[in-house]
């Protein structure tokens, strides 16, 4: 994630989620939107709005300025006007996730949860890895669940804390980024998933930032915002440009992930070995309790069928090559080429195993031939 990739925007201190693009501090600065951005950053929303309006006279189509105007309007609680601005942006530039996200923020404040959900889903559709939209969607589901629970238990829904406040995005940083393009090659999952960004209630004074500023030392140790040349197919953890560099989990999860990857690799190899040994009991033990049995048969029938196949006379040899493991928390995907030989049958296939880790043990949840 070089500074070129993300158009210049200033760091900001939102009231709720601390959203900081680490790359920003080094960015070159574009003139007009930057000023508006700064005013927003300083909490001077009225001035920001004035400035944006003035800039828009000269340059009415400028999306960044219009976006910032929407942010200022939201902060000034002029929600309907703000919604209009963002709505217009989503129509003009449906590839940008930020306007969708902010539209959702407004809908959620207005308790229009279904509309908020739809907007967030659009944000995620445009950018599958757009983390704040994921987090917002998670928050939204929690709020909706809360609402349902209140109805179930006849609780007083007037509790102010039940109002949904989702993370507003104050900058467009996805411009120019192709959705789903970059992905980190090093195990990014754990490193990029440092819990949820802390919820910060502090006033947005620029002087005393309640969270690590972009200059904080943490990013240096982290692979987070710098996606090296990637396997393009794995968009998930990649464009998480605004992930909060929470100080704690920088180092450790990466190590844990490496271990997890190693464990998963061993497990897959042992699975192939058990199969080759024709040790049915061992072989079946690699499959999770909730393994997605192929076809319409039951687990019992599937096991029976496997047993019959493997128990057939003659040697079986299962060789694996090009084994790739991708770990994401307690889930992992193993892809490899499988060379299977048994009396009367030699078959090479590309296989994918979906793994899940339970009690520290990796197990197969799904088995697919690609």
């Amino acid at each position, binding site marked *: 994630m070089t500074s070129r990739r993300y158009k210049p925007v200033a760091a900001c201190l939102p009231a709720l989620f601390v959203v900081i693009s680490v790359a920003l501090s080094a960015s070159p600065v574009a003139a007009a939107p930057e000023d508006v951005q700064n005013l927003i950053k300083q909490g001077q929303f009225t001035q920001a709005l004035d400035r944006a309006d003035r800039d828009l006279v000269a340059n009415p189509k400028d999306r960044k300025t219009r976006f910032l105007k929407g942010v200022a309007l939201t902060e000034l609680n002029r929600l309907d006007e703000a919604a209009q601005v963002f709505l217009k942006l989503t129509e003009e530039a449906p590839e940008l996730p930020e306007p969708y996200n902010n539209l959702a923020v407004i809908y959620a404040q207005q308790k229009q949860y279904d509309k908020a959900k739809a907007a967030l889903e659009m944000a995620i559709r445009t950018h599958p890895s757009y983390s704040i939209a994921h987090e917002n969607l998670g928050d939204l589901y929690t709020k909706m*669940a809360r609402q349902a629970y209140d109805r*179930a238990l*006849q609780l007083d829904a007037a509790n102010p804390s039940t109002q949904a406040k989702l993370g507003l995005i104050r900058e467009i940083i996805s411009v120019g980024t192709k959705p789903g393009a970059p992905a980190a090659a090093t195990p990014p999952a754990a490193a990029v998933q440092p819990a949820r960004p802390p919820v910060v209630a502090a006033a947005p004074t620029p002087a005393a930032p309640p969270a690590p500023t972009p200059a904080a030392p943490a990013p240096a140790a982290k692979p987070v915002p710098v996606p090296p040349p990637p396997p393009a197919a794995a968009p*998930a953890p990649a464009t998480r440009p605004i992930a909060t560099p929470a100080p704690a989990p920088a180092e450790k999860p990466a190590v844990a992930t490496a271990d997890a990857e190693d464990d998963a690799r061993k497990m897959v190899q042992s699975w192939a070995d058990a199969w080759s040994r024709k040790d049915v009991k061992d072989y079946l033990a690699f499959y999770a309790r909730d393994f997605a049995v192929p076809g319409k048969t039951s687990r019992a029938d599937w096991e029976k069928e496997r047993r019959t196949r493997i128990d057939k006379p003659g040697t079986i040899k299962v060789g694996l090559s090009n084994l790739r493991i991708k770990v994401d928390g*307690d*889930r992992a995907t193993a892809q490899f080429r499988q060379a299977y030989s048994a009396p009367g049958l030699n078959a090479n296939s590309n296989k994918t195993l979906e793994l*899940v880790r339970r009690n520290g043990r990796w197990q197969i949840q799904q088995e697919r031939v690609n």
Partner: protein
Amino acid sequence: MSRITPSLRRLLPMVLGCLALLVAGPTGAPTGLRAGVSDAGPDATLTLILRDIDNNKLDVALDRTNALLKAYPNFRLGWLIQGDLLLARARPLTTFGNVPEGGDRLRDLRLEAIARLKGYRNRPADTQVPRYLLQMEADQKYAVVVDTQRSRLYIYRNENGRPVFVADYYASQGKAGSNKMREGDNKTPLGVYHVTGFIPREKIGDFYGAGAFPINYPNEWDKREGKTGYGIWLHGVPSDTYARPPLASEGCVVISNQDFRAISGYMQAGRTPFIISDGVEWLSLDDWKSERTSLNATIEQWRKDWESRDTARYLSHYSKEFKSGNQDFAAWSKQKQQVNAGKDFIEVDLRAMSMFRNPGKDMVVVAFEQDYRSNNLSNVARKRQYWVREGSAWKIIYEGVAS
């Protein structure tokens, strides 16, 4: 959602799956499903939702739940499940009804979920009838059987004396469960009763919902046993809810207003049998028929022996524990001997006979219209008898005019 959902999808199925396992019958599937016959309210959909969750189809489950709540907006258990399904998209669940401050209401909804699923999945098969409905008279169009263990109310139609399943519903009972003994014990009575009337909703207020059908607790046997209390009704629920918890009332049987209205048309004041059991015994039709035939034969023998004016033979049908009002067996025997001495002939016809087995105790409540003619007295009266099993024989332990 590619990142968030999959790992979270694991937990909810486990949590709710446990619930499904908990309530699964021996076969795991409803045994008595008859498409189009029964209206089990939301329970059919509820079962499908749980199955979807079990199969990890949370999106389908949520769609189904949303549809269910459209049809039953006051179905609190549905909201609870919706809450879980939504929350599961945000974070892992640790329990069914994953809301920390739920307290008693949450516990009640969980119990309701179990009761509904259990009751729905363990419905009787077509070939089974409740043992209690031995014989309905022609005027008794329908019968009600309540199973307090399953929190279920069953409706049977009288088809030429044979009970035919019509519908079943989730039903709440007393806060303290069943087997009422005394006034204020918050329990639902067990026994053979009948509906005595109807109270419209205007007269009793919203708490009782669509209305009430009182039943004749305490009956003759209850009184003899010293049981107390009164005002046991079948009634509906307040308008702000679809249902009440399994253990909710002060002894009444409570069903949803919709269900109440559905069965109101079946109820006949003074006629409709209302039998409450804490575990309905189901018989095959063959067994049911043979019980019915043998009891009919016993009663026919009693009638014949009465006509024979052989007082000893007639009295052999009565238990030594017999009691009717102030009369015990000795007083009853003496009176019958005196009466029979003055008779040249006795003719007895029994009409419109019903026989209902009492849940638990080996006892049958028999009612009939008795047409009695003799040389010096004739009358027609509605009578009720309680027959009990003593050794291998059935004996009358109570006999009186049916109120």
